[in-house]
């Protein structure tokens, strides 16, 4: 690394500096492994211990016998395929709805100059100031009895999908990105005879791949990690996503089976992270400095 940080390169080059550096380095590696990796290791191996072994003190660091029974039991007893599928449906739908409606709305606000556009944008940005969780109860009442059409969305994935569209952060992210696309490009497309939808689809969206990726990841992660909202909305056990099901079933299930289910519930998001870690980490770091 060429940039100068707190400690000068000259200090680091000295023998004493080098010794201190490597001591600190090993200390940090050890600390990180212990604080962040070991709990995960403990969870993955805990599920492979026998019920007696997991309850014994002092605990064993490495399971005496490796059982896969915890995982297979969790899969069958806790109906994990059903709950995982529910979560996938909820997350995928929320993602699709957000991409379609937020993109269209952001495009309209950025390029189509709707009347009262400033007012609408202000109203959307104002929701950023209103913490989402503080409004769950009135939101629940709205979903339970939609105004005008008087339909209930409870126990329906639409109760996840539609509120997900009202995401001011993602919409603003998209709008800001679209703002940077020069108007000339779009006007050129229009002179060539492309309609607004065509322009959005074949000019704007291909240019917006990075921001669409970020919004997609945010949308998926948000649904997968959410707990309070699906807990309120899905009283029907068969419709519950994995997060709610885990808590509901945690009371009366064997510990090893529960731990195995926890591991299985974590795999999709951890896999997504490891796959896209470069983009996710870069996105978080970049988002901060731009404010």
């Amino acid at each position, binding site marked *: 690394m060429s940039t100068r940080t707190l400690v000068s390169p000259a200090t680091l080059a000295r023998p004493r500096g080098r010794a201190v*550096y490597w001591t600190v380095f090993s200390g940090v590696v050890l600390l990180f492994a212990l604080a962040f990796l070991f709990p995960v290791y403990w969870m993955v191996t805990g599920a492979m211990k026998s019920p007696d072994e997991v309850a014994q003190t002092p605990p064993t660091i490495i399971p005496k016998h490796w059982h896969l029974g915890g995982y297979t039991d969790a899969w069958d007893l806790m109906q994990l395929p059903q709950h995982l599928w529910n979560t996938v449906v909820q997350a995928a739908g929320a993602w699709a709805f957000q991409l*379609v409606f937020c993109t*269209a709305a952001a495009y309209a*606000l950025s390029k189509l100059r709707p009347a009262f556009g400033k007012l*609408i944008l202000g109203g959307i940005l104002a929701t950023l100031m209103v913490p989402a969780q*503080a409004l769950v109860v009135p939101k629940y009442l709205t979903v339970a009895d939609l105004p005008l059409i008087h339909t209930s969305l409870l126990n329906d994935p639409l109760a996840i999908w*539609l509120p997900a569209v009202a995401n001011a952060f993602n919409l603003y992210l998209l709008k800001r990105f679209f703002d940077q696309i020069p108007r000339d490009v779009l006007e050129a497309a229009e002179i060539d005879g492309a309609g607004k939808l065509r322009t959005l689809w074949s000019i704007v969206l291909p240019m917006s791949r990075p921001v669409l990726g970020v919004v997609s990841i945010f949308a998926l992660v948000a649904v997968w990690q959410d707990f309070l909202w699906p807990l309120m909305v899905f009283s029907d056990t068969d419709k519950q996503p994995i997060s709610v099901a885990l808590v509901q079933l945690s009371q009366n299930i064997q510990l090893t089976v529960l731990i195995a289910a926890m591991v299985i519930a974590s795999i999709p998001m951890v896999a997504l992270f490891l796959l896209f870690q470069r983009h996710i980490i870069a996105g978080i770091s970049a988002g901060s400095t731009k404010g």
Partner: protein
Amino acid sequence: MTKTAERQPVGKVAVRPVQAPPPAGDRRRRRLAEQARAYAFLLGGLICFALFSWYPAIRAVVIAFQKYTPGSPPEWVGTANFTRVWHDPEFTAAWRNTLTFTLLALLIGFAIPFVMALVLNELRHAQAFFRVVVYLPVMIPPVVSALLWKWFYDPGAGLANEALRFLHLSTSNWSNGADTALISLVIVATWANMGGTVLIYLAALQSIPGELYEAAELDGANLLQRIRHVTVPQTRFVILMLMLLQIIATMQVFTEPFVITGGGPENATVTVLYLIYKYAFLYNDFGGACALSVMLLVLLGAFSALYLRLTRTEGDT
């Protein structure tokens, strides 16, 4: 708004000079068609915001002054909901717990990530590894982290007490003790959420120009003085932002107390959002729940407004 609308036809003419300016009626019809198209794009998002953001916000305030039971017509009750909630012994506990939680999370959740980022920024090896590892807990579903730590805190075979025994320290009740429960939850929340904070601090640290450190060193500033006079002032804005965001997030804490302690022992971990949940779904008292929501809303809204104001003014310069 009107200015841009007037400018538009002029711009169109400039692009296509071959066309004669269209007659006035035609122009109005075209503008109307353009508006219709813009609103067609806007409609889906607009309906969702209206239904699930704007309407619930108004409704929270309305229901806070009503006796509300789903299915029957609401009754106006004035400020009765507020006084009833106010005199609930859990109300004081919930606010005290939430504020203590926020304060502790701020102390622990600010100091640890900042020091971590400071050290990580000095390391020249395995940067990618550190970043992935520190962010890993953030990607584990919060429910799983909560259940995992509930198991760690188990008084019998829990890892937390095993670690204390291994270090020859006296064991603790952790989340099962009335005085240790809240701090135990703060530890969980910090562990689970610290990754994002560390990454943002790291990015801020990397944007500090190296010359500043060089100049400070030439002036004879030692390591701690360099941190105090260069690092902290240079990252002050990011620190302030993250503190505010963290306050807003931790004041809405729900998953950890719900999953790990169920609000106990002896209401030691009931939070405001937990109480809102209880009023709505256990007591079926939606008026009380909304009165509480409005109180939380006002407080958090003030913090959010401060955050937005700061990002607007300082972010531009």
